[in-house]
C-alpha cells in the first residue's frame, strides 16, 4: 500500500468470522469498561457517560429556568399582582435568563456534540476524555453555586446581561453580582473545553475515508459552533471575570465614568460575546434538522454544500452584529447602519437552509413522525422570529421595539422555535440511540401540539404588548396601561408550555424503563451512529468503520466496511489526517480518573472563594497543583506499549 492511494483500506479487504468479532468485542469490553459502582460514576471519562450526564443536568436546568418563568408569568398575569415583589422578581428574571442561556441552551447543544460527534465520525472516544469530564464537573459546580445562591436570597439581580453601572460596586453592593460573574466563568470554561474537544475530535479522530466533504451536517454545525465558542467566550470571560470582577473586588475603574472608565465598554464586550451566543445555540439546532429531514423524507438532503457554506457564513456574520443590541445608545447613526446591513444579511444563509430542507421534503415523501413534526414546528415558529429579527435590524424600528416585550417575543420565537423545537425533535430522534428504547409516539404528538400552541399563545401577544409600550424586565404594571388582558393570554400560554413539558417528562421516564426496544437503527437512518448497538458499547464500535460516502448506511449495499488492526489489549484510538481522514497513528486513550472532579472542585473553591477572600484564591490554587501532578502521573503510569506507530503501515499488515 502506498501513501498516494486515496482509499487506504481497499487492498486489504477480508471478512471476519463471527467468532473473531465476538472475541474482539469481549477483549474491548474488558479494556474499555469503567470502574464499577459510585466510584466508577465519579471517575468516568467515556464521552457517552459525560454526554448523558450533561444532557440530564441541562434538562434539569431547562425545568428550573421554566419554573422561574412560570413564576414571572404568574406575577405578570394581572396588573399590580403581588406573587413576587421587585427584589424577588429581579432575581427570578436574572436567574431565568442566566439559566436558560448559560446553563441550558449552550451546554445542552455542546452536550449533544459530546455524545454524538465521536459516534458520528466513527471514533472510540472524544479527543480529550479527562478534560471533557473536568468540563462537566466545572459546569456542575456552577449549577449548584447559582441555585444555592438563589435559594439563599443572594441570586444575581441585574439581568443576565449585568449592565454596568447597575451591576458595579456602587449600585450592587453585596455578593449577588459576584455570583453571576463567577457563574459565567464556570460556564465559559466548560464551553471552551467542550469546543476544543469537538474541534480536535472532528479534525483528528474521524473514521478513515470521512474526508471533510463527507462530514455529516450535524458535525459541521458542531465544528463551526466550536470555533465560534473559541472566539466569543473569551470576550465575556475577560469582561465579567476580569474587568467587572476587579471593579467589584479591588476597586479598579474599567467601567466607572467618574474615573475615566466607560460604561458603554461593557455593552460592547458583552454583546461581542452575547450575539454569537445566540448562533452558538441556533446552529447546532439546525444541525439536528438535516438528519431528521433526510430520514423522514427518505431523501439525501438537497444542497449539502449550500448548507455547509450557510453554517460558516452565519458564523462569520454573527460576529458583526453585536451593536444591534445597542441601537438606543449614543453610537453614531452611520456606524449603526453597518450593523443594520449585517443583521439583515444574516437572514440569507438561514433562509437558504430552510429552502434546502423544504426542497428535500418536496423531493421525498414526508413521514410525519414526531421528530419531523418538531422540524415543521420549528419552521412555523422560527420564521416568525426570523422576520421580527429582520424588523429589529432596522435602527428606526428598533428604537421603538428595543427593550420592550416585542423583543421578548422575538427572542423566544427564535430560541424556542429555532433552538428548543429542533432539540425536542432531536430528543425523539436520538433517544433510542442513547437509551436503547423508543419514546412513545402518541405522547410525543400530544407534547408537540401542546408545545407549539403554548409557545405561540405565550409569545405572539407580546409583540403587541411591546409596541403598546410595555418595557421588558418590569415586575408589574398599572391597570391603566391596558396591558392586562394580553398578559393574561400570555400566562395561559405559558401554563400550556409547562403542561407540554410535563407530558414530555412522563414520556421520557416511562420510555426509558418500559419503552419499545429500539435496535441499532430504528429509523433506518444513514449516519455512522446508527451502525452500532443502542446504547453503544463503551468503545462505540467493535471495528472502526470506514466511510466511503456522506450517507454510509444508505450507500453501503452489503455491509459497512470496517478497519481492523487497533489493539484490543489497551484503550487505543485511531488518529487520522485532518482533511482526507487517512489513518495516521494510534493513540492510547486515558483510563478513568478522579482528577477531573478533584480539579473542578479546586477551581470552584478558587473562584467562589475569591469572592469572599483573596486568601482562598491562594488556597484553591495550592490545592490545584497536586491535581495537575496526579493527572500527569496517571498519563505516565497508564502507558502500556508503544504509541505513535506509523499506523497505515501497521494497519495494512494486521488487516
Amino acid at each position: 500500500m502506498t501513501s498516494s492511494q486515496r482509499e487506504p483500506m481497499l487492498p486489504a479487504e477480508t471478512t471476519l468470522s463471527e467468532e473473531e468479532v465476538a472475541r474482539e468485542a469481549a477483549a474491548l469490553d474488558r479494556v474499555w469498561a469503567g470502574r464499577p459502582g459510585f466510584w466508577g460514576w465519579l471517575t468516568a471519562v467515556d464521552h457517552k457517560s459525560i454526554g448523558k450526564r450533561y444532557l440530564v443536568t441541562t434538562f434539569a436546568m431547562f425545568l428550573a429556568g421554566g419554573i422561574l418563568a412560570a413564576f414571572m408569568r404568574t406575577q405578570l398575569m394581572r396588573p399590580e399582582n403581588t406573587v413576587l415583589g421587585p427584589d424577588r422578581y429581579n432575581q427570578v428574571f436574572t436567574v431565568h435568563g442566566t439559566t436558560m442561556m448559560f446553563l441550558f441552551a449552550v451546554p445542552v447543544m455542546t452536550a449533544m456534540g459530546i455524545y454524538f460527534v465521536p459516534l458520528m465520525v466513527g471514533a472510540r472516544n472524544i479527543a480529550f476524555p479527562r478534560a471533557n469530564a473536568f468540563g462537566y464537573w466545572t459546569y456542575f459546580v456552577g449549577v449548584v453555586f447559582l441555585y444555592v445562591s438563589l435559594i439563599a436570597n443572594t441570586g444575581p439581580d441585574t439581568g443576565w446581561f449585568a449592565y454596568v453601572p447597575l451591576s458595579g460596586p456602587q449600585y450592587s453592593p453585596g455578593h449577588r453580582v459576584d455570583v453571576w460573574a463567577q457563574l459565567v466563568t464556570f460556564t465559559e470554561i466548560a464551553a471552551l473545553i467542550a469546543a476544543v474537544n469537538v474541534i480536535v475530535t472532528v479534525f483528528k479522530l474521524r473514521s478513515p475515508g470521512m474526508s471533510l466533504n463527507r462530514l455529516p451536517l450535524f458535525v459541521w454545525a458542531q465544528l463551526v459552533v466550536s470555533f465560534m465558542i473559541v472566539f466569543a467566550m473569551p470576550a465575556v470571560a475577560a469582561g465579567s471575570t476580569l474587568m467587572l470582577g476587579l471593579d467589584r473586588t479591588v476597586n479598579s475603574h474599567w467601567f466607572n465614568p467618574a474615573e475615566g472608565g466607560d460604561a458603554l465598554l461593557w455593552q460592547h464586550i458583552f454583546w461581542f460575546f452575547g450575539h454569537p451566543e445566540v448562533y452558538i445555540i441556533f446552529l447546532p439546532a439546525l444541525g439536528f434538522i438535516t438528519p431528521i429531514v433526510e430520514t423522514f423524507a427518505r431523501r439525501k438532503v438537497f444542497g449539502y454544500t449550500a448548507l455547509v457554506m450557510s453554517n460558516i457564513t452565519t458564523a462569520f456574520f454573527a460576529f458583526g452584529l453585536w451593536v444591534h443590541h445597542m441601537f438606543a445608545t449614543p453610537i453614531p447613526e452611520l456606524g449603526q447602519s453597518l450593523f443594520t446591513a449585517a443583521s439583515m444579511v444574516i437572514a440569507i444563509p438561514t433562509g437558504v437552509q430552510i429552502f434546502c430542507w423544504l426542497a428535500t421534503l418536496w423531493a421525498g415523501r414526508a413521514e410525519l413522525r414526531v421528530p419531523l413534526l418538531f422540524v415543521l414546528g420549528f419552521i412555523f415558529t422560527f420564521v416568525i422570529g426570523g422576520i421580527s429579527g429582520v424588523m429589529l435590524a432596522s435602527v428606526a424600528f428598533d428604537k421603538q421595539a428595543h427593550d420592550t416585550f416585542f423583543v421578548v417575543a422575538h427572542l423566544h420565537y427564535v430560541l424556542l422555535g429555532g433552538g428548543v423545537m429542533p432539540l425536542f425533535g432531536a430528543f425523539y430522534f436520538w433517544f433510542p440511540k442513547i437509551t436503547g428504547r423508543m419514546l412513545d409516539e402518541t405522547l410525543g404528538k400530544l407534547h408537540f401540539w401542546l408545545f407549539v400552541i403554548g409557545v405561540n399563545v405565550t409569545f405572539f401577544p407580546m409583540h403587541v404588548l411591546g409596541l403598546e409600550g410595555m418595557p421588558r424586565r418590569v415586575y408589574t404594571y398599572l391597570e391603566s396601561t391596558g396591558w392586562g388582558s394580553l398578559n393574561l393570554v400570555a400566562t395561559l400560554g405559558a401554563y400550556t408550555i409547562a403542561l407540554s413539558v410535563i407530558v414530555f417528562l412522563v414520556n421520557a421516564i416511562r420510555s426509558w424503563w418500559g419503552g419499545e426496544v429500539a435496535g441499532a437503527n430504528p429509523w433506518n437512518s444513514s449516519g455512522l451512529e446508527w451502525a452500532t448497538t443502542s446504547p453503544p458499547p463503551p468503545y462505540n464500535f467493535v471495528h472502526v468503520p470506514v466511510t466511503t460516502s456522506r450517507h454510509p448506511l444508505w450507500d453501503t449495499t452489503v455491509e459497512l466496511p470496517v478497519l481492523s488492526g487497533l489493539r484490543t489489549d489497551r484503550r487505543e484510538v485511531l488518529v487520522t489526517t485532518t482533511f482526507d481522514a487517512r489513518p495516521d497513528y494510534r493513540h492510547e486513550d486515558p483510563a478513568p480518573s478522579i482528577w477531573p472532579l478533584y480539579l473542578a472542585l479546586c477551581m470552584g473553591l478558587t473562584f467562589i472563594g475569591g469572592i469572599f477572600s483573596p486568601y482562598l484564591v491562594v488556597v484553591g490554587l495550592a490545592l490545584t497543583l497536586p491535581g495537575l501532578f496526579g493527572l500527569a502521573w496517571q498519563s505516565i503510569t497508564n502507558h502500556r506499549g508503544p504509541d505513535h506507530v506509523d499506523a497505515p503501515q501497521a494497519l495494512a499488515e494486521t488487516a
Partner: protein
Amino acid sequence: MHSAFAPASPQAHLVATLWWWMLGVGGAIWLAVIATMLYVTLARRGRRGPDDLQHVPDATRRRMERVVLGAGSLTVLVLAAFLVFDFSVGHALAQHPQRALTIDITGHQWWWEAEYEDPDPSKRLTTANEIHVPTGEPVQFKLRSADVIHSFWAPNLNGKKDLIPGYLSTLWFEADTAGVYRGQCAEFCGLQHAKMAFYVVAEPRAKFQAWLAAGAQSPPPPTDSTQLYGQRVFLSSGCAVCHTIGGTAAQAFVGPPLTHVMSRATIAAGALANTRANLMAWITNPQAIKPGARMPAVPLTGPQLAALVDYLGTLK
C-alpha cells in the same frame, strides 16, 4: 396614550409606516413559507414508495435548484428593499433641527428630572415626571443619567434613547397632535424600573407658554395657619433634605422638585394619581407603593401629615 401604534409626531409616523410595510411583506413571506411547507409535507404524502432512496431525477433536481435559487434571490431583494427603506427613515430621523426648544432630561433611580433651557437663568424651569411641550415645533432633549442607565421612551412621539453615565445623548420630535402621552423607562435600572413613568403633555404654543411662565415663578407663600404649620413640617422633618420648593429654603435635587407639584397629574413617577389620599399614603409609607424607592417613610403625627398635605396642596 401609550402606544407606537398611535403616532402623534412626524417622526413616530415614519416609523409606524415602516413597521406596517415590514409587517405586511414579512407576513406575506411567512404565509408563503408555511403554505410551501404544508404542500411539500401533506399534499404530497404517499406519492412515492416509502423507502425509495434512489437519486432524485435530474429534471426534478434542476427544478429544485431553480426554486431554491429563486427563493434565495427573492430574500435578498426583499432585504435590500427593507434596507433602503430603513436607511431613508433613519436619515430623516437623524436630521436634527437647527433651532429648537431644548429640555435637559436627567434620569434618576426612579424618576425623571426635566430642565427647560433658557439663556436667562431666572426663566429656567425645573420640573419632574411631567414634560410639557408645544405642538407643531421641534423639541430637542439632552439626556443624561445621574446614576445607572435609563432609557427615555414615549412611543407615540419617537423611539427611545439611552441615558448613560458619562455620555450625553440627544433625541428630538415634533408633536403634531395635542394630547397627554405616557412614557416609561425602557432600560432595566433596578428595583423600581417598573414604576419609572413620565407624561409628555403636548399643547398649543400659547398654553405651553403660559405653563412655562407660571412654572418659573415661585408659588405664593402659604396664608392660613395650617398651611404655615405644614410648611414648617416640610422644612423640619427631613423632606427638605431631598426636595426643592421654590421660594423656600428647600433646594435639594435628590428627589423630584415639588415647587408646582399640584400641577402634575401623578406622583411617584406615574405610580399614583395625584390625590390627597394618595399623597398621604405615599408620604406615610412610600415603600409599600414603590418598594426600594429612595424615599424613606417619614414618621409624622396625624395632624402633621394633614397640615403637610394641606401645604403641598397650595403648590399649584
